[in-house]
């Protein structure tokens, strides 16, 4: 009874978190968090399952190979979500001085307090892991094409294996963060750990959020890009360990299915896929053992560190007083005499710096925005290299995405700054302002934004300058730095244009309308559109579609096989179009090699862009539905192809050029819309 009461007490403490409003209704918070987890994981499972539902003819080898990508996505997501939960809870994962104050005076043995605390932590981890992985696990059987003769036992095996592996991956992610925290605390001691704890938490948050945002674009081609390559990089990727574990547990369910003769256009791809998948069996076993060993080691180390740190109840750690040295005095003098001369400006300036650096909520807001900015920057700058023709002083020879990254990062960081400013530093202490406030917001606000410049904008631009100086040359980097300063000034003014609350003081009231986020939302929209446009025309994307079939030429072989069935004398408009795709692949590759980015593509003739717009999603995916919408049927021989062949083509190609998650939601919705077109046209047939 006492244990249950204590466990419940500790569980509620997880919800009374600094990141969540301390006055929020705990049931509402619980419902919102649970609903979010279920909705996001369910949405992901649905997106992954959709191509399998429509890819009934996909043979077993190709399913096995494709399944590796999906398992990588699910294990990575589970690992990252659980690690993020651990980072978000951070200080609540261990006993703290408040527990000592509340429970230390009660006649409860230390062992009981420690046991119940870690039981609560375990329940939190299990609860989140189950809620996150439940829907994808139930959806597992949907990701087996209906025409594959998988037995009921096989389906159960696949489902159980998925559940076990994703839960194990989540446990690994959670335990890694907990182990890191407790291990560091055990090694350096509570007093020193308190000093580095905030920085460690922020760094982990940035790393994990960045990884989460990059995951959708990085999970494709696991077998070819990672497993088949071998090497240290593949072995060092924890999600791959658990992919190996899954294949060891349940990979044979699909792999041992009888290989009936697939449709002709699948033969080569199926053979290649089967060969590749089966050649990796030793690798799966090896990775499975690594996963088990890693989970065991992390579990043992974490448990040992937790037990070591729980030898006695923690006492409040008083931070060592640090007086201003010469540098601190000089800094204050400069601020007081140069940067912020008036008292109110100084109040805003110093209070902002103190709050941003010391308060958890503000640090989390900034770390999250930094992570989003870094991810956007990495996504847009991916694959952009300077070609041999790059002139160190010529900005026009630099790929646009390389330059756009700075703007993306600045916009994201400043949006995070605005968010941080809206969160009260300490709501109860706001009476300080109520009594001392002179009613003059402008100079105070000026101090706040000035602090934002010095604490956020200048370090961001400084870091980018070093990178740009290395990549682009000092002159261009300095020019780009200046552009960044100007953009920051514009963004800062725009973001705070209609801001009339007292920063860090006014209670945070979530807005029911978009207007307060208008500027940030518009910026995000523009930049996301920019990223999508780039991805859409990305040569890498087009090449990867071909690579999933084994070789670039495989795709043309598929079409060649299809064309065998086409009645002689048909015009080859479609073939020309498809070959045109390969030509554009080459063109795109060349463009990428020579560092010509989106800007150059933006200058291409409209009709070329229009053609690019159709590929690869439209042209490959919509072999069937497109012909119905073309006015001049003479240019589209598919109208004369037997309906069955059309269906097979659609099934074959659609599986491989399914909308990858890195095309983001808009692309997915676009693809789904076209699926509906397929269904509508199939019904009469």
């Amino acid at each position: 009874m006492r244990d249950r009461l204590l466990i419940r007490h500790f569980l509620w403490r997880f919800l009374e978190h600094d990141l969540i409003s301390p006055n929020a209704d705990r049931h509402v918070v619980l419902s919102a968090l649970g609903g979010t987890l279920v909705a996001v994981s369910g949405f992901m499972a649905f997106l992954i399952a959709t191509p399998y539902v429509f890819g009934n003819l996909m043979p077993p080898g190709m399913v096995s190979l494709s399944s590796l990508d999906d398992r990588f996505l699910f294990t990575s997501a589970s690992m990252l979500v659980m690690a993020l939960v651990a980072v978000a809870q951070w200080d609540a994962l261990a006993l703290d001085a408040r527990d000592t104050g509340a429970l230390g005076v009660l006649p409860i043995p230390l062992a009981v307090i420690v046991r119940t605390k870690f039981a609560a932590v375990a329940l939190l981890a299990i609860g989140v892991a189950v809620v996150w992985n439940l829907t994808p696990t139930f959806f597992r059987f949907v990701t087996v094409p209906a025409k594959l003769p998988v037995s009921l036992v096989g389906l159960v095996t696949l489902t159980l294996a998925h559940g076990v592996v994703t839960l194990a991956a989540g446990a690994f992610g959670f335990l890694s963060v907990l182990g890191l925290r407790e291990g560091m605390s055990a090694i350096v001691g509570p007093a020193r750990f308190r000093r580095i704890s905030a920085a460690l938490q922020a760094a982990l948050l940035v790393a994990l959020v960045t990884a989460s945002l990059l995951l959708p674009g990085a999970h494709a081609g696991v077998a070819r890009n990672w497993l088949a390559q071998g090497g240290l990089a593949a072995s060092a990727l924890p999600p791959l360990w658990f992919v190996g574990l899954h294949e060891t547990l349940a990979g044979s369910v699909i792999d041992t299915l009888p290989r009936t003769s697939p449709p002709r256009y699948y033969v080569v791809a199926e053979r290649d896929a089967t060969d590749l998948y089966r050649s990796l069996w030793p690798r799966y076993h090896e990775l499975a053992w690594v996963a088990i060993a890693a989970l065991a080691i992390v579990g043992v180390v974490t448990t040992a560190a937790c037990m070591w740190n729980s030898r006695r109840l923690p006492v409040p750690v008083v931070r060592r007083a640090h007086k201003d040295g010469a540098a601190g005095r000089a800094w204050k003098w400069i601020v007081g005499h140069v940067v912020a001369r008036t008292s109110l400006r100084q109040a805003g300036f110093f209070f902002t710096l103190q709050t941003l650096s010391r308060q958890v909520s503000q640090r989390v807001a900034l770390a999250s925005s930094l992570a989003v900015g870094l991810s956007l920057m990495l996504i847009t700058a991916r694959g952009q290299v300077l070609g041999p023709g790059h002139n160190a002083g010529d900005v026009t020879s630099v790929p646009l995405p390389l330059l756009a990254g700075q703007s993306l990062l600045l916009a994201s960081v400043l949006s995070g700054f605005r968010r941080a400013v809206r969160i009260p530093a300490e709501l109860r202490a706001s009476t300080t302002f109520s009594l001392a406030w002179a009613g003059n917001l402008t100079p105070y606000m000026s101090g706040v934004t000035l602090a934002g410049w010095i604490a956020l904008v200048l370090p961001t631009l400084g870091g980018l300058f070093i990178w740009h100086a290395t990549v682009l040359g000092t002159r261009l980097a300095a020019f780009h730095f200046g552009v960044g300063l100007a953009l920051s000034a514009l963004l800062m003014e725009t973001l705070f244009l209609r801001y009339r609350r007292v920063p860090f003081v006014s209670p945070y009231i979530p807005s029911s309308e978009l207007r307060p986020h208008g500027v940030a939302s518009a910026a995000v929209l523009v930049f996301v559109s920019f990223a999508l446009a780039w991805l859409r025309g990305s040569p890498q994307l087009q090449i990867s579609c071909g690579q999933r079939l084994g070789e670039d030429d495989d795709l043309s072989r598929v079409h060649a096989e299809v064309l065998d069935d086409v009645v002689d004398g048909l015009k080859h408009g479609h073939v020309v179009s498809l070959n045109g795709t390969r030509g554009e692949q080459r063109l795109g590759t060349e463009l990428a090699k020579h560092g010509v980015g989106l800007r150059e593509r933006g200058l291409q003739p409209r009709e070329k862009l229009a053609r690019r717009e159709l590929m690869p999603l439209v042209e490959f995916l919509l072999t069937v539905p497109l012909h119905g919408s073309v006015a001049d049927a003479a240019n589209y021989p598919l109208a004369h192809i037997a309906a069955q062949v059309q269906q097979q083509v659609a099934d074959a190609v659609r599986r491989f050029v399914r909308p990858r998650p890195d095309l983001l939601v808009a692309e997915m919705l676009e693809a789904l819309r076209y699926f509906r077109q397929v269904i509508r046209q199939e019904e009469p047939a």
Partner: protein
Amino acid sequence: MSDVSFEVRAGEVVGYLGPNGSGKSTTAKMLTGLLETSAGAVLFDGQDIALDPVAFHRRLGYVPEEPNLYTFQSAIEYLELVGRLRELPPALLTRKIGALLELFGLSPAANQDIGSYSKGMKQKVMIIAALLHDPDVLVLDEPDSGLDVAATLVLRQLLIALARRGKAVLYSSHILELVEKACDRVVVIHRGNVVADDTVEALQRLMSRGSLEEVFSQLVLRADPERTAADIADVVADHA
């Protein structure tokens, strides 16, 4: 609160007494403008403070019942924030903060986070923050809570000294001895009503009691404290 009306004159320390829940802190918040009155008004220099609360706050010093401070700041940082918000000249602010921290015995901990302070230390920070700008009106809501004996004695003398310099001081406390010695006049509130408003001597004469404690007991206590204490001890000793 109902029908609460009293006056605090310049150069006067007025004690504000009442049992728990009688409305002392509520009155203090109304007087400082942190809480709006549903009826009536708070007048300062004959003018309703609601008409220009900022101007009133410039001349007000307030020590709240709970020392709610920014715990991530040090005492110096907090006091600098308050002084800057009140637009005190930087040199004067630095000088005042240093001197007051020294006089209140907080200098050794001045650079530590307030979160690590004891309640008494936090209370001292609040008192300094209320005095930094040399206010004309002081509202102190149990400022002696958590203070040690020496600091309490200093506070008593400080109130008298400030009143002599023309400040109007409203002092709410549960330490009746302190109120008796520091205050020129006492207002007693009970269940939201003022039940007494006079000098300590006049009340003692009126109630025929020898001390303020006895006067207070007669005004607000409805039960015999000795009897109540015995009842509590009986409940504590109940093991059945």
